[in-house]
């Protein structure tokens, strides 16, 4: 008995350091081929709509993008890891749809001068997409241990708060929101990276304190609460979210962070009372904000009745609703949506805030549902990776990464459709923007790495770890 059972599991350890053997990924290859073909057809449809020519629209750009996806696939095959085979094709298809959309929108929305040539919206987005694929693949292939995330969670939290403070102080104000941080020539929106850091910290915190949070110790009226000190992070999170709203005027990030925090706390502890308290805090905070701060109150008023001022404050959302309406069931076809109004696209900021409305116009309800379906698949993969993870940290981390994508997609999709007040977050994988694409690439890369159970890293801690025990151990010894 000992020989067979021991032998089978004993080889599990040396295999970690063993030679790397290529491993075919047929599911991924087939799905990628199908996604590539769909994008090619989409590109032809776009070309027919714009020029009336039966050929791919800007074939070079599409070629580079599909080539990058193929390279990512080859790299994963060569690395021989048993990571998830669905994530790359699904996010790849979303990115490809984004490329088609950005190629179709007026190219002068975003320009970037490189030497003598000027890159337009489509080309800049292509550059970010290729970079994002590179980041996701590198993380998926290289990351074999999560110790660097697990061990330094407070360092990560400190880095996140530092990033937030830097943005508070040095951030540039763009359209009344202080979101962009510039360091020399490199600019970016830290809140996109912050959401990943937040999930890493929460995964560390919740996995360490999960047993305590589940124990029911304190009673407060009808609610049964965990020990009160463990509610501190929730209050801190709430304060940070409110701070983001007040100082950064970034409602979207605040909603995203708090939403992910609540959902993840529920996923980790299964306690409805925590969620109820969180929701209560959130509603109280929102009501307070809406009354105290004009920019928050305005958003709510616009949301309740955009047609009160259709040419002024409600213009953006009214145009988006019209776009959805024009799209109807099957859409106008790629490239055949409403042409420019006064030299600009009808919906202001369509490439960052309203890509879903543009897609709704050109692909119709049918297309939008397909795109939402793709997001559901990404979320399902993340939750599945979490459910099959070996320990709490990885389970919560994977769940949180999936939730970040899901909650963000929900917030902006709901904002576009006037289900929620509009808040300026990006639609993951589709909106224009380097910060957004790269941050979501980090999410996909980490999910790929976490999904691999074939090469599990060695047992995590040599020293005793766990709540309190760690601190006490250090002090005495």
């Amino acid at each position: 008995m000992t020989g067979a059972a021991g032998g089978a599991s004993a080889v599990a350890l040396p295999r970690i350091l063993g030679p790397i053997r290529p491993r075919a990924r047929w599911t991924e290859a087939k799905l990628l081929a199908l996604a590539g073909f769909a994008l090619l057809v989409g590109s032809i449809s776009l070309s027919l709509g714009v020029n009336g020519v039966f050929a791919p629209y800007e074939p070079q750009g599409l070629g580079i993008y599909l080539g990058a996806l193929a390279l990512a696939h080859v790299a994963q095959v060569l690395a021989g890891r048993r990571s998830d085979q669905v994530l790359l094709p699904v996010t790849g298809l979303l990115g490809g749809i984004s490329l088609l959309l950005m190629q179709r929108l007026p190219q002068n929305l975003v320009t970037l001068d490189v030497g003598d040539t000027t890159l337009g919206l489509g080309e800049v987005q292509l550059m970010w997409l290729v970079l994002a694929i590179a980041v996701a693949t590198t993380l998926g292939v290289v990351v074999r241990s999560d110790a660097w995330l697990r061990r330094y969670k407070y360092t990560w939290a400190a880095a996140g708060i530092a990033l937030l403070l830097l943005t508070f102080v040095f951030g540039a104000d763009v359209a009344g929101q202080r979101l962009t941080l510039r360091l020399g020539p490199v600019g970016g929106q830290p809140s996109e990276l912050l959401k990943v850091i937040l999930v890493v910290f929460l995964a560390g915190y919740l996995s360490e304190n999960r047993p305590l949070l589940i124990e029911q110790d304190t009673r407060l009226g009808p609610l049964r609460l965990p020990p009160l000190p463990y509610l501190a992070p929730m209050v801190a999170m709430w304060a940070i979210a409110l701070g983001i709203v007040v100082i950064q005027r970034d409602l979207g990030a605040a909603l995203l962070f708090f939403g992910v925090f609540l959902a993840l706390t529920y996923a980790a502890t299964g306690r409805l009372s925590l969620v109820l308290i969180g929701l209560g805090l959130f509603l109280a905070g929102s009501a307070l904000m809406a009354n105290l701060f004009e920019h928050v109150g305005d958003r709510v008023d616009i949301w309740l009745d955009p047609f009160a001022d259709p040419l002024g404050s409600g213009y953006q959302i009214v145009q988006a609703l019209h776009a959805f309406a024009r799209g109807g069931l099957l859409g106008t076809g790629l490239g055949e949506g409403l042409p420019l109004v006064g030299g600009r696209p009808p919906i202001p900021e369509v490439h960052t805030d309203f890509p879903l409305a543009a897609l709704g116009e050109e692909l119709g309800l049918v297309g939008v549902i397909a795109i939402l379906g793709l997001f559901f698949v990404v979320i399902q993969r993340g939750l599945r990776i979490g459910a099959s993870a070996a320990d709490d940290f990885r389970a919560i981390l994977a769940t949180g990464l999936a939730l970040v994508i899901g909650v963000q997609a929900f917030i902006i999709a709901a904002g576009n459709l006037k289900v929620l007040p509009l808040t300026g977050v990006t639609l993951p994988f589709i909106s224009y923007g380097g910060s957004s694409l790269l941050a979501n690439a980090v999410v996909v890369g980490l999910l790929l790495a976490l999904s691999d159970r074939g090469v599990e890293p060695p047992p995590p801690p040599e020293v005793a770890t766990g709540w309190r025990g760690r601190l006490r151990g250090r002090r005495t010894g």
Partner: protein
Amino acid sequence: MDGFLLVIWVVRLLFLALLYLFLARVVQSLLRDLRAAGREPGASLGRLIVVESPAGEPEAGRSFDLDAITTLGRDVNNAIVIDDPFASSDHAVLTYRGRSWYVEDLGSTNGTFLNGRPVAAVSPLGFGDEVSIGQVRLRLERARTS
């Protein structure tokens, strides 16, 4: 001109159809994955991995699927027999209650340790935590589902 319009419509609908074909294929593969996970025998509540065992019984690297009540100790009647000179015959018990695992010391001579701290009362145990009995260290992990 009519032919051209027809081509536009065919290509447009083909694109939408391909999006759904892609989704269908993805869902197919997800279902396959879920069915495979469902077929896996012995979906248990968790498993214990032997991290370190100087005496060699149980062997380091071995994995035990856990029942809702799993006893550990030197006595052969325990669910997991720990043949270590520092282990008592009925040393500790792991129980699964509600949503979480708990560890309890059964009055052993040398004590049970959770992440290096002695277990005084019934203590909740998270996946990834380590239990030490004598010189044997065991880690609780989620059951394999894929």
